[in-house]
């Protein structure tokens, strides 16, 4: 696994860029920027479903989500750059594993939203509260992204081999 990730990093120029003087902090800045865009769009929509900003149309605010997708793509690209440049610092890291777990949960939650609730929410008048199911989805989303941010910060402090992981 580590060999495959390292090979990818070396052959694509990612490793050379990330090990240049400004490579890593530049990627970190873009990573955090993507996260802020995600929270400002998907997070704001989640807060709206939980009742903040009554009067703003759900359908209007939902149109912010496309910027959230752009932010998420920035995160995936820069995240891949981190992971492939120093794979041993990530795949054995319990903070990274927890982050990935909650990213999976956030993804499944999003699929659940679009499969069951999104049309109903977008058709709801801005003065009316959304269903309890939509509120639960919003709360799970906000909780997941909060944990993802916290785990992202903790990755630096739980570096292997000093900390255990499930398959070390």
């Amino acid at each position, binding site marked *: 696994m580590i060999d495959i990730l390292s090979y990818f990093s070396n052959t694509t120029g990612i490793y050379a860029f990330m090990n240049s003087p*400004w490579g*890593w*902090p530049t990627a*970190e*800045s873009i990573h*955090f*920027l993507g*996260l*802020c*865009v*995600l*929270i*400002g*769009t998907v*997070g*704001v929509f989640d*807060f709206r479903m939980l009742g*903040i*900003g*009554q*009067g*703003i*149309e759900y359908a*209007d*605010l939902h*149109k*912010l989500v496309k*910027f959230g997708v752009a932010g998420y793509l920035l995160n995936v690209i820069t995240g891949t750059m981190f992971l492939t440049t120093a794979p041993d610092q990530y795949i054995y890291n319990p903070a990274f594993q927890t982050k990935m777990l909650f990213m999976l949960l956030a993804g499944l939650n999003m699929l659940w939203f679009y499969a069951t609730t999104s049309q109903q929410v977008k058709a709801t008048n*801005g003065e009316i509260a959304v269903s309890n199911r939509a509120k639960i989805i919003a709360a799970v989303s906000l909780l997941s992204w909060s944990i993802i*941010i916290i785990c992202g910060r903790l990755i630096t402090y739980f570096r292997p081999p000093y900390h255990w992981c499930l398959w070390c």
Partner: protein
Amino acid sequence: MAVVVGINFAIALRLIGWVPQFALNPFQRFYHLHWLGAVIVLLSGLGLLLAYPAKALTNPVFYLKFIALGGGLLIAAWLQKQIVNHSISKIPAQKLKIIAGISIVLWIMAITAGRFLAYTNSVLLASRFF
């Protein structure tokens, strides 16, 4: 920080016109979250500054971050005031777009400077000067 920057991005995108013209007045309720986030940012930043004062105060990037953060928060406070007073509709759209653009640039500067702080310090402890 993500909550503060995110809410500012959302309102800037609305003012620039990249997202639909959703009602701004109800959006003022998001400012409660925004200022709660700002207080957490300032308190945690103060804690980090107190822990390693020489590391931050000897680094020009720290001042860049401070200026960008202060400018971004000033614009946020001004925009909130215009929304609460219902006077935002009287401001020319072009002026609002410029202010929203400046807000986005300032927040990108604050984030970038914040990340670069960890890589650009030349002094760690004040004891170096004694």
